[in-house]
C-alpha cells in the first residue's frame, strides 16, 4: 500500500485518498459559445500519458482537501504533491 504525501497532513496510506483525474483542466467559462465538439472534449476526454501526469487527489478520509500530484503512471511513483492553486512543479 502506497504512501501519499498530503500537502496538508503529510504521508498517509493510499486508502485514505480518492482519485480525481487529470489536473489543470479548468471548467470553461462562457461555455455557451463552445462548439458541441469543444464541450464534449472538456466533459468526456482526458489525457492518458505513460509517465509523469499531473492529477487531482482528495484526502477523503483525512483533511478532505483537494490537492494535485504529479505521478508517474508507469511506476505509480508520486514525484511531487502541491496545493490547489499552486503551479505545477517541474519534475525530472
Amino acid at each position, binding site marked *: *500500500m502506497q504512501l501519499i504525501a498530503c500537502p496538508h497532513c503529510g504521508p498517509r496510506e493510499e486508502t485514505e485518498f480518492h482519485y*480525481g483525474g487529470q489536473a489543470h483542466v479548468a471548467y470553461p467559462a462562457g461555455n455557451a459559445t463552445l462548439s458541441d465538439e469543444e464541450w464534449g472534449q472538456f466533459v468526456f476526454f482526458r489525457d492518458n500519458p505513460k509517465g509523469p501526469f499531473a492529477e487531482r487527489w482528495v484526502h477523503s478520509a483525512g483533511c478532505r482537501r483537494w490537492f494535485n500530484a504529479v505521478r508517474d503512471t508507469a511506476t505509480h511513483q508520486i514525484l511531487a504533491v502541491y496545493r490547489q492553486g499552486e503551479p505545477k512543479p517541474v519534475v525530472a
Partner: protein
Amino acid sequence: MTSSFRLPTGGRVDRSTELAFTFNGEALTGHRGDTLASALLANGVHQVATSVRLGRPRGIVAAGAEDPSALVQVEEPFPEPMLTATTVELHDGLVARGLPGQGRLADEPDPARYDAVHAHCDVLVVGAGPAGLTAALTAARAGARVVLVDEQREAGGSLLGAPERLDGAPALDWVAAAVDELTAHRDVRVLQRTTAFGHYDDGFVLALEKRTDHLGAQAPANRARQRVWRIRAGHVVVATGAHERPIVFAGNDRPGIMLAGAARTYLNRYAVLPGSEVVVFTSDDAAYAAAVEIADAGGHVAAVIEARAKAPAHWAEECARRGIEVRTGHVVTGTSGTDRVTRAHVAMLADGVVGPRTGIACDTLLVSGGWNPTVHLYSQARGRLRYDAALGAFVPGEEIDRASVAGSATGEFTLAGALRSGHDAARRALASAGLSTEGLPAEPELPVTDPEPPAQPTRVLWSVPDPDPDAGHGDQRFVDLQRDATVGDILRATGAGMRSVEHVKRYTTIGTAHDQGKTSGVIASGIVAEALGVDVGELGTTTFRPPYTPVAFAALAGRDRGVLHDPVRVTAVHDWHVMHGAEFENVGQWKRPWYYPQDGEDLETAVLRECAAARESVAMMDGSTLGKIDVQGPDAAELLDRLYTNLMSSLKVGSVRYGVMCGLDGMVIDDGTVIRVADDRFLVTTTTGNAAKILDWMEEWVQTEWPELRVHLASVTEQWATIPLVGPRSRDVLAAVAPDLDVSNDAFPFMTWRDTGVAGVPARVCRISFSGELAYEVNVPAWDALAVWEAIFAAGRQWGITPYGTETMHVLRAEKGYPIIGQETDGTVTPQDLGMAWVVSKKKDDFVGKRSFSRPENLRPDRKQLVGLLPVDGDVLLPEGGQVVEVDALSQPPVPMLGHVTSSYRSAALGRTFALALVRSGRERVGQTLYVPLEDELVPVTVTDSVLFDKEGSRRDG
C-alpha cells in the same frame, strides 16, 4: 508403526513433555517443540496423504512451508483444512488426518478471535536466521526502531537444523545471546511464529502471527488466535533464507523421499532419524552433511549418488571414513515401493544418456539439486530477478527502494557470508531510513565461523530422463507433487506451442497449489527452457504474488465479522421501530423501517394499509436518514445557483424549494429540498444514499473550481431527525403538538417552513410533500427525536395515525410520478427525460450541466422518457427491470427494446397495479398499448402520463 526414530539426546524438543495426538485414527505421542511432521517421523510414519488426482501415497518432503505434499486436515481442536504437517506445531490433543488433496471446511462458526495490529518501525527484518539476527542487532545497536519477524517458534533459522559453531561454541548459544540483546532493547519487537506474507509499496508488510495455535485446547479464549500485523517500515531487510531444490526423476514422489536439508533439520532440530537405510542423491555439496550426520547418528547410509563427475574432496574423505560409498557420475532414475520407497534405481548418466541400472535397497532417499533463494518478498515488491547459472537459481538482481536482501536469500550460502551480508543490509537500511550509523564500530563485530571446506560448483540438473518411459504406468516424473503434474505435462504444454512460463503454469497447474510452487517453480522454468532450447534467464520465472504462505480468511477478516463487518447506522427512533415490529431495509449503511406488519400481514397487505392511512387520514415516517448539508457564507446562494438546475438565490428566507443537480453531462445526480435559513445560510437535503457523494461533489467544486466563493459546507445529517407527517389529518395532529404555530393554509402555506415548538422541543417544520397529500416535515435535534416521535404518535391516535416505512413512501410518491434518484435514474437520464423541464432555469447564464442539455444526443425526440404504465389486467404486477417492447409476440432475437420498468406497485388509491417506466419517445406514446415480458407471457400495458393520482394537486392543501 510404533518403533521410535527419536534419538536419545539432542535437538530442540522438550523430552520432559509428552504430547498425545491422533493421526489417521492412531494414537501417537511427541514432544513440545515438534511439528506434526517431526512427530510423525519420530513414530516412523512417512506416508501422510494421498495425491489429489492419482491417489498416490505421499509423504513429507521438506521441513517447512515449502513442503509440497504432506497435506493434513486438522479435526481437533477446530476443523481446519489444507495445512502442511511441516508447519503445524504439535500440541496435546491434536487430531489430524492426511488429506486426499482437498480438505473440509468447518460447518460451524469459528469460535476463535482474530485481530489486527499496526506497527511502525525504522527497520523491519524478516527472518531470524544468522543474516536476519545480525541485521536486527546492527540496526538495534545503531538506535533504530526494529521489528524482527520469524515464522518459526524460536529464532535461529538454518542454525536450528545444522550443528554449526560460532565463536568456537554451538551457534545456538550465539542465537540465544542475540535474542536476549534484542529483547532488552526498548525499541525492538521480536515476533516469533510470525510469517511476513505480503510485501507492498513503501515498506508496507503484512505478517501473520500464530498466537495460540500451538496451545491447542489450552488456548486462552480471550487471546486472539491469529493476528495480522500491518507493518510500515522505513526499510525492510529480507533475510528469508533459501529453499532446497529437488531433482525430478521417475517415482520421485514416494513417501520416504525427502530433501537432504530437511533430513538434517529433522535430525538436528527434532532429534529424529529420518530412516534406517538411506541413499543420498545430489548434484550439490550441501547434501553430504546430511549423509555424514545421519551416519554419525546411527543411520546406515548405503550410498551417495553424485550426479557430478567428481565428488568434493573434503566430503569424499568424510564419506570414506564412514564407509559410505560415493558413486560419481550417477543419478537416481527411478524408485520402487508401494507406500514407501524400498529401492532406488541408480544408473550412470553421461551426455544425457542413461546407462544400465542397478538397485539399492533403502527406506529413505534424500535429494538435493541445489538451493533457491527465497526471493518471494523481494519479488513481491517488484524487485527484478536475475538468473544465476552457477546456482541454477533466480537471485535478487538489483537494489530496490526501501528494501534490501540478506543472507542465503541473496544466493550467498556460507555462514560467514550470511552474517556479513546481514550486517551490510542493516547499514543500507539505516542509511535508507535516514538514521545515523555513527554509533556503530567501523569494522563489524561479527561472530567467528569455523572454516568451511572449499566448495565445488553445483551441477544444475532439473530432471533425470525416464529410462523406461513406455512401461505403461504413465509419466511419474513429478514436478509439482500437490498438483500431480509431471515433466510430460510440461512437454505437452510446450508441444502445444506455449512459450511463456506463465502459460505453462496455467496449462499444467504447476505452482498453483497451497505451496505456490516453492519447490517446483524454478524446475518448471528449467524444463521449459530445455524443451524450447532457450536460456532460463531469458525465459524467467512466474510472478511471485502475496501471500507467501496461505492465510485463513478468518485472520484477514479479523474483528470485522458479523455485526462488525460493516458499520450500521440507525436513527434516533430506531428502537421504537424495533419495538413496533418494523421490518428493516438496508439503504447504504442505514437500517430504515421498510414496513410495519400487523398480525401476520405480509409486505403487500401492510403497505396497502399504510398507504390508505396516508391518503385517508394520517401517517408518519422516520425520514431522519435524508442527507442534510448546511451551506453557509456570503456566497452560499451563488454556489447553489451554480450547482442546481434551478434558481436558488431568489428563494426567500422562510421558504423551501425543490431542486435538481446534474453532472457536467447533464444527467441527474440528485434531488432534494433547499430551505433558506438566512440570507447567507441554506439547508439542503439529499437522497439518503447520496448524502456523502453530494457533499463531496459540492466540496470538489468549491475547492477546485471556485475557491473564491466564500462558502462552507457541513454535513448535519446526524444532527437532525426528520419526521414526515402525511395525510388529510396531518394539520390536526400538528396543531395538537405545536400549540404556538398557526397551521392554517394562509399562515403556513405550501413550500414554507416555520420554527416553532413541537412537543416542547424547538423544531423546524417544513410544509413539503412527497405524496401529494397535505403533509409536514418535522425536524428536531436527534437527541429529542424519540420524545417528539412519541408525542406525535400519541396526538394522532384519535385519527388512527399509522407509522409507515420506505415501501409505502415509494408507492405514494410513484402514484404522483415523483422519481427516486437511482431508481428512475441511472446516470443517463436528464431532467427533461423525467418530464421536469420546469426545474431547469432559463434565466441563469450557466450552471453545472446546462451546456450539455443542448448537445444533439440530449435533444433527440426518441430519448427514453418517464411515463406511467397501467397493466390492462389491473391485478398483474410488472417486474421492476422488465423490458418494454412494442410487439405482441416475441420474434427471433434481437427484439427491439423500448425501455424498462423502473418502479412497480399495487396501489390502494388506484385500486390496481401500476408502474413507472423509461420508454423511448414515451410522452408521444401516451395511450398506446405496449408489452412487458413476464415469464412466458407478454403483458399488455397502457402508456399513461407519469402522474397517476390527483393530477390536479387538489389534495396538497388539505
